[in-house]
């Protein structure tokens, strides 16, 4: 028997903390430095500057400033809250009919209902103007029937646009929840004599409650932080991100106003983030068993579902139909169709490609930055687990902080940063701002790789570096392709931070759409929108390819 010598606890602790320096340590350090420089510092700077500006108090703020902030915050909360409510109310039945009922063509509906998500909200806003503006198609129809005109420049138009645009987000989140309800739960309910309605209300809805709440929070956040639709539609109705943007760009407003509004947005974002993190833990239920989905077979439900899905899909696609028609039209003010059809708008774009070229150049720089960051952090989270949870909070911030605010932070932190004539601040802003999206796809890719496979490699004597490149990386390639595509389509449609940073000569396609729409060049704005939608649709198609199967096929052919 060996003599019993218990090593002191400190020895064990030292072994655990002892930094195992390997090449990844440097990658983590670089990723950390990037996050610190381009997210933490800019956001922190806004908060600190606000504190100083308030403390100095050279002159008191305008009287009534407090009420003003309260009003625009309430306005934003009202629009976002109402949007969330209606979107979930629409998304829930859509999800039920396409996941749980044998609705005819439900596969097609599932694809179509996800499509609007890839386009930016300001295109939807633009479409709302085409539909319901003073000379809109629907407005004319309403007038002909003798109904009163709808005034869309304000909360009504804004909410309508956001509902049309964000319902797919609510739909997808709820549908994901419905898909993981194990069939056994509903079968048990049915075997106990529970009817469809009772099972849905008593068993299914409580089961997916976290997903429903999550859908509401996601829609709320997206609507709350959007600046594109308010720019075109808000009219005199003041909302927080738009006010932050205009006060930053205006010389007439007190310099402190934009700072205070930005800080206020950041504080609200932290609050929402806390709620969201909690919900995320509940929605990411990983079943160890494979789940079947229970299907309700009643014939009536099927046709009810078909009708509902058809109507909803038609409604959600109406904006895009109008934009496509308008892009081929000359003037569209008095008829149900444009006065004449023409290709001039596209010819104009072809001869003025600068905006699209700018967008492509900036996205091509921003995407690898974003993807590289996402995969470095994904690996870091995998290696450090709960010890890196605080960092996880940090990198989710760009999801909840409006783009305008991130733009302000970066412009203040790095004014005139333009090495080699390229305004690198834009791709950097994009990479940080779209990181949460990329990170989500990347971590999903990592989590599909069984950890014991990496352990097997280590046990065989391979270094962590070799293990990553020989064992982990080949399995990550499908996730890399998907992450790149998601990052690209999110980056090329970014508007908030672009508006703030926008260096001369670097107008992007989204800014051009906004500019043409505001200046009344409706045909041109439509045509660029169509081109942009085509680009993101292509990107999205690439994101949804089954890469693992594709690679397998290529390999067997070689």
């Amino acid at each position, binding site marked *: *028997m*060996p*003599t*019993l*010598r*218990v*090593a*002191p*606890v400190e*020895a*064990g*602790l030292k*072994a*655990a903390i*002892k930094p*195992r320096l390997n090449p990844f340590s440097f990658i983590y350090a670089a990723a950390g430095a990037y996050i610190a420089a381009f997210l933490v510092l800019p956001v922190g700077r806004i908060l600190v500057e606000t504190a100083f500006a308030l403390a100095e108090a050279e002159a008191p703020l305008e009287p009534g400033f407090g009420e003003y902030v309260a009003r625009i915050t309430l306005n934003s909360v009202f629009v976002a809250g109402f949007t969330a409510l209606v979107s979930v109310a629409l998304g829930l039945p859509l999800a039920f009919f396409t996941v749980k009922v044998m609705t005819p063509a439900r596969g097609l509906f599932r694809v179509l209902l996800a499509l609007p998500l890839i386009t930016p909200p300001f295109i939807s806003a633009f479409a709302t103007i085409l539909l319901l503006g003073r000379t809109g198609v629907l407005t004319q129809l309403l007038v002909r029937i003798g109904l009163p005109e709808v005034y869309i420049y304000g909360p009504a138009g804004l909410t309508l646009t956001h509902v049309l645009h964000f319902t797919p987000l609510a739909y997808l989140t709820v549908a994901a929840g419905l898909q993981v309800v194990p069939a056994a739960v509903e079968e048990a309910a049915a075997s106990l004599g529970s009817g469809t309605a009772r099972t849905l209300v008593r068993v299914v809805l409580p089961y997916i409650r976290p997903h429903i709440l999550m859908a509401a929070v996601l829609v709320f956040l997206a609507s709350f932080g959007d600046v594109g639709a308010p720019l075109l539609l808000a009219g005199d109705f003041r909302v927080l991100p738009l006010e932050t943007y205009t006060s930053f760009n205006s010389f007439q407003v007190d310099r402190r106003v934009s700072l205070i509004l930005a800080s206020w947005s950041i504080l609200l974002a932290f609050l929402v983030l806390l709620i969201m993190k909690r919900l995320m833990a509940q929605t990411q239920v990983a079943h160890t068993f494979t789940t079947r989905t229970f299907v309700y077979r009643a014939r009536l439900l099927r046709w009810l579902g078909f009708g509902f899905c058809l109507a909803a899909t038609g409604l959600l696609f109406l904006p895009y139909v109008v934009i496509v028609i308008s892009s081929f039209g000359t003037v569209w003010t008095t008829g149900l169709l444009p006065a004449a059809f023409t290709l001039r708008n596209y010819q104009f774009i072809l001869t003025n490609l600068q905006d699209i070229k700018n967008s492509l150049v900036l996205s091509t720089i921003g995407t690898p930055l974003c993807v590289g960051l996402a995969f470095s952090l994904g690996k870091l989270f995998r290696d450090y687990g709960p010890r890196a949870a605080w960092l996880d909070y940090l990198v989710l911030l760009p999801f909840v902080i409006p783009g305008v605010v991130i733009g302000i932070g970066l412009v203040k932190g790095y004014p005139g940063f333009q090495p080699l004539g390229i305004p690198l601040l834009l791709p950097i802003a994009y990479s940080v701002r779209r990181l949460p999206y990329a990170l989500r796809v990347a971590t999903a890719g990592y989590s599909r790789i*069984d950890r*014991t*496979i990496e*352990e*097997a*490699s*280590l*046990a*065989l*004597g*391979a*270094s*962590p570096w*070799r*293990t990553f490149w*020989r*064992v982990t990386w*080949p*399995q990550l390639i499908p996730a890399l392709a998907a992450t790149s595509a998601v990052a690209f389509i999110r980056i090329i449609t970014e508007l908030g931070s672009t508006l703030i940073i926008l260096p001369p000569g670097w107008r992007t396609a989204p800014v051009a759409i906004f500019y043409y729409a505001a200046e009344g060049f409706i045909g041109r704005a439509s045509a660029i929108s169509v081109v942009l939608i085509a680009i993101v649709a292509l990107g999205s198609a690439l994101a949804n390819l089954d890469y693992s199967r594709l690679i397998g096929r290529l390999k067997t052919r070689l």
Partner: protein
Amino acid sequence: MTAVVLEGLTKRFGNTVAVDNLTLSVSEGEFFTLLGPSGCGKTTTLRLIAGFETATAGIIRFGQRVVNDLPPQRRSVGMVFQNYAVFPTMTVFENVAYGLEVRGIQGKELRRRVLAALELVGLAGLESRRPDQLSGGQLQRVALARALVIEPQILLLDEPLSNLDVQLRVSIRKEIRRIQQALKITTIYVTHDQEEALAVSDRVAVLNAGRLEQVASPFELYRFPASRFVARFIGWATVLSGRVVSAQPTGYVAIKLDGGPVLRATWCRPVEPGQRVWVSVRPEALSPVESSQAENVVSGEVSYLEFLGPAVRGELKAEGFAEPLLFELERPPRDWSSWAGKSLCLQVDPELIAYGPE
């Protein structure tokens, strides 16, 4: 071939103690099994030995060398995982060759050794297959070949058979034992299946809640369990409480069961008269007798019966016993089911009674 020594090994995760002050040594070339219910710390112990976890306290030695601070890739252990962990993007050949490549072995030598390893586990001819073209049993063999080809000092197996069906489990465990005997490699095997542990091991360590209950050969473990927990965990047994009446070293020990008769057991460990003990009675220790007057006889009513094929197992509700006595009778007669509810006298073989201080 290397001995493995654990001294005061402790692993805590937050407030839970997964492995609690574990001390044991595995000899060179020994087939050593860590056995216990789920959550007893056996897998954590194995992962500590492999280097995937860092010990909170204690020492792990391979031979003379303390390996606590050695990262897993420098420990030269072969490990087989419960879910095989075969690299999905590599062929069978590439999987097995991987560890050799890491060691700088190339060309003909690499090929020769990979093919030899595949031959050893019975996978010759499948080297260009991809993992998704293999069955569970074949994947398990790939994992085994991959672990063995690097000629590790120590082979670690983490529940390697638990994902296979019963027939395959029995045949692969035979093969693992055969290969281990041929290579004389120090092997540490983790399982929760006690039959598997008894079948393949030289020695077995029973763990419970992170603590070591007993280390012994399979025979000793079954016949002379060191604690109430081991008696209950290994095989079937009725475990009762009692007080020692008399004890003759190397002779018999008489124990008065609480509320029951006095039972005579063959001496297996020192106890003092008057001492409180637990008593374990194996089902096969009981055989029917005509009269209750003979020695070591328990009588009662048959309260439950089940047919197992080679035997009938039942429960005897004996007067004064805290729990029913399990019995097993081989080669049951045609009218075995008529025993149900009848009273029966059963004599207990003192050889198959174990006891120990509470």
